[in-house]
């Protein structure tokens, strides 16, 4: 009887409910983006990975933007003018900008945002941690004083998204951490609509945005969380998705050259992957031994694995980065005789070492395998252990492993010092092999204070040379980023400072 009633209830619902709900609406202006993961937060003060930036970058604006083709060229965004006078920067703000809730944007928002960001100390705060104080001069003018003169402040502010001081004040008990984790109110091109956990984040176009949309922009964006790379590729090819990030290279090349698609190519990777060698644990604590590994490594195998869409780096900074010394650096190439000589000099024979590889990245595993076979030619045994990222980096930091495989990209458009701090200076999170060189520490501290670009370039070369000469890192390859885009879609550009991210406001349907 109960079952029958249940069925009757459902049937009744079927008859009555159809009026208010329609699943299959006309949805031509929806853009579906297959993202490789689900954000842990959408708080710009904490956003730290690609799929978090996807959301924050499109909801919030920054004071300054930069030219993707020439990252050293800064462009106005929420700030229209800026000047530097020693440690003090003055920013003139754009008039008439409003947040999605309708409240006006002014200098108080800039101060509240930066104060909060620095207090929380997470996400991209490291890019602007030289800020000493923020002062509101008038509603449309803000002054920022740094701890020491830094030429990179404006460039690094191009990565910092502006929040509303009203929201920050309203949720100040926990610095707004709970609220901003899953709510958003920016001035940017898209508004936050909803977050369905495990599935998607929905955005809608902000038609009051101060910037300019292309002729046929998308009114609705669905940022889908698709964890499997093969699924992203298949869904893109099958038309379920309009664009996808981190499509496996072989799939990207195949799809991008197939009918109905074109390939977008660009630079944003500094090394993919780089192998960090432990400076404290035998046998990699021996400089000549590290030199032998760097020289024995089969770089050609790596380039081939990227099907030619890669080159071998000559140091930590790619040639396309503003002020890079790369072109003046000697080539790094496989030289087995030199490797054997270096190994003999090290006095180590039949050495054994362990390499920790973060799971989920086929290129990382491949690079470790290439190291294993290259080292074998020297009589060195490399044991590979694939682990979750946190476990892998903890293994090398706690001297349980000799090497760690990691991808390198810099999230500042023209400041290399932040990258150096994180990767090669004492205490840097990615400095997993615990490299330390006092001269490098001093150089990196001095670089931002040098106003003259030529002088700065010389110091940057010195810094790069120190890292290269230490044989601390094997830069296995520097691949190009390739993204297949359907012909029915346009506007995708590769951001050199944001991995593989989509600027939805530039995308349009053809």
């Amino acid at each position: 009887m109960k079952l029958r009633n249940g069925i009757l209830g459902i049937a009744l619902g079927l008859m009555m409910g159809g009026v208010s709900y329609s699943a299959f609406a006309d949805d031509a202006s929806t853009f579906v983006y297959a993202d490789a993961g689900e954000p842990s937060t959408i708080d710009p003060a904490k956003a730290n990975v690609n799929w978090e930036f996807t959301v924050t970058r499109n909801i919030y604006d920054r004071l300054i933007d930069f030219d993707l083709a020439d990252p050293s060229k800064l462009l106005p965004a929420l700030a229209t003018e800026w000047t530097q006078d020693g440690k003090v920067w003055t920013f003139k703000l754009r008039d008439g900008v409003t947040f999605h809730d309708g409240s006006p944007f002014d200098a108080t928002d800039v101060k509240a945002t930066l104060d909060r960001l620095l207090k929380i100390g997470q996400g991209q705060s490291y890019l602007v941690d030289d800020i000493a104080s923020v002062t509101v001069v008038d509603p449309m003018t803000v002054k920022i004083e740094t701890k020491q003169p830094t030429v990179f402040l404006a460039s690094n502010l191009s990565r910092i998204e502006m929040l509303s001081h009203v929201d920050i004040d309203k949720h100040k008990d926990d610095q707004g951490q709970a609220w901003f984790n899953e709510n958003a109110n920016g001035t940017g091109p898209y508004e936050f609509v909803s977050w369905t956990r495990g599935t998607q984040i929905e955005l809608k176009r902000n038609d009051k945005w101060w910037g300019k949309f292309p002729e046929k922009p998308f009114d609705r964006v669905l940022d889908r969380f698709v964890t499997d790379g093969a699924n992203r590729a298949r869904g893109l090819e099958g038309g379920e998705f309009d664009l996808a990030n981190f499509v496996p290279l072989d799939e990207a090349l195949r799809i991008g050259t197939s009918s109905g698609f074109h390939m977008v190519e660009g630079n944003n990777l500094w090394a993919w992957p780089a192998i960090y060698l432990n400076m404290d644990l035998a046998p990699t604590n021996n400089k000549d031994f590290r030199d032998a590994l760097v020289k024995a490594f089969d770089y050609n195998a790596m380039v081939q694995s990227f099907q030619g869409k890669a080159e071998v780096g000559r140091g930590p900074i790619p040639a396309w980065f503003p002020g890079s010394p790369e072109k003046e650096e000697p080539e790094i190439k496989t030289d087995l005789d030199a490797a054997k000589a270096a190994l003999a000099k090290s006095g180590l024979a039949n050495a054994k070492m362990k390499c920790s590889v973060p799971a989920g990245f086929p290129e990382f595993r491949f690079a470790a395998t290439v190291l294993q076979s290259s080292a074998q030619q020297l009589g060195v045994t490399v044991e590979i252990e694939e682990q979750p990222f946190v476990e892998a980096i903890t293994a090398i930091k706690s001297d349980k492993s000799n090497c760690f495989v990691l991808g390198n990209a810099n999230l500042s458009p023209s400041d290399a010092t932040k990258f150096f701090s994180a990767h090669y200076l004492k205490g840097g999170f990615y400095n997993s092999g615990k490299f330390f060189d006092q001269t490098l520490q001093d150089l990196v501290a001095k670089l931002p204070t040098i106003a003259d670009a030529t002088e700065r370039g010389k110091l940057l070369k010195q810094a790069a040379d120190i890292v290269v000469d230490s044989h601390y890192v094997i830069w296995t390859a520097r691949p190009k980023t390739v993204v297949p885009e359907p012909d029915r879609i346009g506007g995708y550009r590769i951001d050199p400072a944001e991995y593989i991210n989509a600027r939805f406001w530039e995308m349009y349907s053809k």
Partner: protein
Amino acid sequence: MIAFLFKRLVWGLLVLIAVAVITFFLSRVVPADPAAFLAGQNASEETVQRIRAEHGLDRPLPEQFASYMIGLAKGDLGQSIRTRRSVSTDLKQYLPATLELLTFSFVLYLAISFSLAVLAARHPGGTVDGTIRLITMIGTGIPVFWLGMTLQFFFFYKLHWLPLGARFPIRETVPPVVSGFLLIDSLLAGSLSAFLASLKHLTLPAATIVVNLLAVGTRLSRAALIQEQSRLYVRTARGKGLSPNRILFKHILRNALSPILTATTMQFGYMISWVILVEVIFDWPGIGLYAYQSFQVFDYSPVIALAIVSTAGFVIINLVMDLLYPVIDPRVQSVGS
């Protein structure tokens, strides 16, 4: 009966506590640092320390354990470091998707495995029996992830018959949540098209689970049916001229059901563990996907909570089956008493 139920509930509770204790200490053995994950890669050591303190990760292990167990006794499953929400809130969000997938798969599994067993048992050793055995064995031999991806390849990529993954068509609006089961919610919203769309999305994940379980279920059910067919009461029934269907459904089935139920209970346990893989392959937003994402960053609280929830699911199913045995077969009750 009440004493039996009480005893089983106490045992179930002890199992859950044991699982919580073991998972807690196992998760702490791994040399990972969830605070570093939460702080983000470029955070200073001071920030990481602050977060560690905020989440009590700097406290001695026995203190963390005591705090966790006290919270657990109050129904507090802890806080997820990854989603930055309480685990209970997350489970409320993710559980319905998994329950829908499990229920659908379970019903499908019962229907198919039993039908195949009946077909196979009609002529043991015959062509039909052999074919069913071969097909189900092949299904079981294929790894779950490979089977899932192969089904996606053919039915989504090549034939365009079924969706790649997820619970509902991407560009469409999900029906208002009432039960959390999209099949039911679509009907309650009065949309047959939404119901059919949900059904299409369920098909491949459920098929992946069912195909892998089919061999064991079919073989055990077949064996139970064949054994019962050889009993005297069946011969008597045949002698009385009863139709084969009447003999099967009225007489054989009831007697064969006990071993079938036992096998089914075991299979349900496998189903719970395989759902993690299947949900990852099909981007099914359930607790399997939630578990996978939590494992990746050593998010302790969800990992322990999920172990407890899946164990609880298994314990409940076992309890229900234990209660069903006497209903199906009165001899079980008399032995128990």
